[in-house]
């Protein structure tokens, strides 16, 4: 596993967010989760989004992941206007452009690793033969060639997260969006997972990690800090 730290040159613009606001109605109270956020993310970036709870970090992540649309403002993903899209169009973007990695892994418990990784390809309409091949390929990439037919409960936490990462990679997305990817792992396994992200970054993937842990964020090349629904700082790190 290579941990040598290199920064890759920026590619074309992937995410272009301009003046995004998000309001929630909680009973009589209106919550301003995002108060006007602008953010540009390019291909080949390794970005960490940080912030305490209530900072709008999760809302921003949902927005970036096309799980949610802004109340106000512009959002373009690969020059497509996401802000105006309906449910099924968003599902299509998520399927083709975004690879999700969740804190709780979110694997289907009754399916083996291979089936779990194949899932996005089913929704993309990839024929079965090709599905198996591509799923096997990414499982090999994350070092699970010997665990393909294990169910999630037969895998360790680190292995489960690797399956989830393989699932995120399998449809060759524009970005990988990881939400507290080490939150449910012990620190040793967490280090291994972050090394895997480093490796994937070096292989040419664009990675966005949402975290509240400083040392996890330090793996990224750029750190965006949120506070009270606004971007507090946006810095490149070595």
């Amino acid at each position: 596993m290579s941990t040598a730290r290199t920064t890759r040159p920026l590619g074309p613009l992937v995410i272009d967010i301009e003046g995004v606001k998000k309001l929630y109605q909680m009973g009589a109270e209106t919550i301003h989760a995002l108060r006007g956020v602008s953010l540009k993310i390019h291909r080949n970036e390794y970005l960490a989004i940080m912030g305490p709870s209530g900072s709008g970090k999760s809302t921003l992540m949902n927005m970036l992941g096309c799980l949610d649309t802004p109340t106000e403002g512009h959002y373009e993903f690969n020059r497509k206007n996401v802000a105006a899209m309906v449910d099924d169009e968003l599902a299509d973007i998520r399927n083709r452009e975004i690879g999700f990695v969740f804190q709780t892994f979110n694997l289907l418990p009754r399916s083996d690793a291979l089936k779990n990784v194949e899932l996005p390809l089913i929704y993309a309409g990839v024929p079965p033969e090709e599905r198996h091949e591509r799923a096997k390929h990414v499982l090999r990439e994350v070092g699970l060639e010997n665990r393909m037919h294990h169910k999630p409960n037969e895998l360790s936490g680190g292995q489960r997260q690797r399956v989830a990462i393989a699932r995120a990679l399998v449809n060759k997305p524009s970005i990988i969006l990881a939400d507290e990817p080490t939150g449910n792992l012990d620190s040793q396994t967490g280090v291994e997972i972050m090394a895997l992200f480093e490796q994937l970054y070096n292989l040419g993937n664009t990675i966005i990690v949402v975290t509240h842990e400083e040392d996890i964020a330090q793996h990224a090349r750029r750190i965006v800090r949120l506070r009270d629904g606004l971007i507090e700082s946006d810095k490149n790190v070595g």
Partner: protein
Amino acid sequence: MNTLYYEFTESLNIAFAQISAHKMRSMLTALGVIIGIVAVTLMGMAISGMDSSFESSLAMLGDDVIYVQKWPWGPVEDWWNYANRPPLQDSHAVELNRLIESSPNTLLEVAVPVRTRSGVVKRGDNSVNGVFMAGASGDYGRIITADFREGRLFTDTEAEGARNVCVLGCDVADALFPAQNAVGQTVQVKGYPFQVVGVLVRQGSFLGLFSFDTQIILPIKAFEKDFGGKTRGLEIRVKIKDKKRLEEAKEELVGLMRRVRGQLPGERDNFSINGAEAFKEQLDPVKKGIAMAGLFVTGLALFVGAIGIMNITFVSVKERTKEIGTRKALGAKRRTILLQFLIESIAVSLIGGLIGIILSSTLGIVIGHLFPKLPVEISPALIIISLLVSAGTGIVAGFAPAWGASRLDPVVALRYE
């Protein structure tokens, strides 16, 4: 298009994995559908069994034979209009046959006078009660459908000569002559000796009510000589040439009978023409009753079953909210999720339907073995209808929860614990 197909097979896999993971729950849920399908198939079996046994009974009676009688079959309200009709006579039959023979284009073949009553047939100490006695002319052989196991029918000469000869139904023959050939032997009918000239093959019963095998057929003149009955009237059975032209044949017979009876134009018929198909009309309300009861039970059971499936699908959606969120995050569209839960509820319902069909077929076979006379019959159409009905139940029951699941907000669903 491909995507839809892959999603469909994926949904099928999920549904069966889900059902096999919750076998007990799925079976309990399917119970309502099972009961409903058993009710509907048993009802269908009873009705189609009644139909087919009716058809075969009709064939036994001779479906190409119509009856001239004083009374119509079936209930009448103005009985006094019928009571005063003159009784039918042997001479009417003779006259009818003369008319039939002289009209070349007739649809009628032959008229046979028949007198009936019931009585005891004895041989030594053995006796059979409640034997159906029929006195007929020598032409009777042309209208009965049964074959002879032994012997023959009495000849015209025997019939005209009022000879004491008889033909036995097979049950009568077997009861009186357990170990020997009945033909040539003598039986006592109401004290009069009759020589057996023939025995009929086994025919079975009419709708399980009246057995054709406990009858005795005598020459009508011998019947009249020994048992009287001239005043009780008789019936004339008329065989027709083409059963497809039954109605025309009936009209012709009415015309001939009016001539025989010397009725004036405008006068009401003073006889009735009866056909076995009249039984059909009597059977219809019975079939309707069974159908109504069956449909009511089926409807009720399927309604309860549908609510059960709906409930369990709601539970299933709730339990797998996070999974739905994950699937949506990975690119599942609304229709994917809708399809997934709909297929699951259809699968539960179809399994219930299949179990129901298996149960009621087994039940039908058991009933058929225990009571061979009871008409039961399961048809492919019934199986297809049952499967369609259970699939429909699954769709109706699963739609609301599946729709709800497909509309879940992925953000909310992912956060659900």
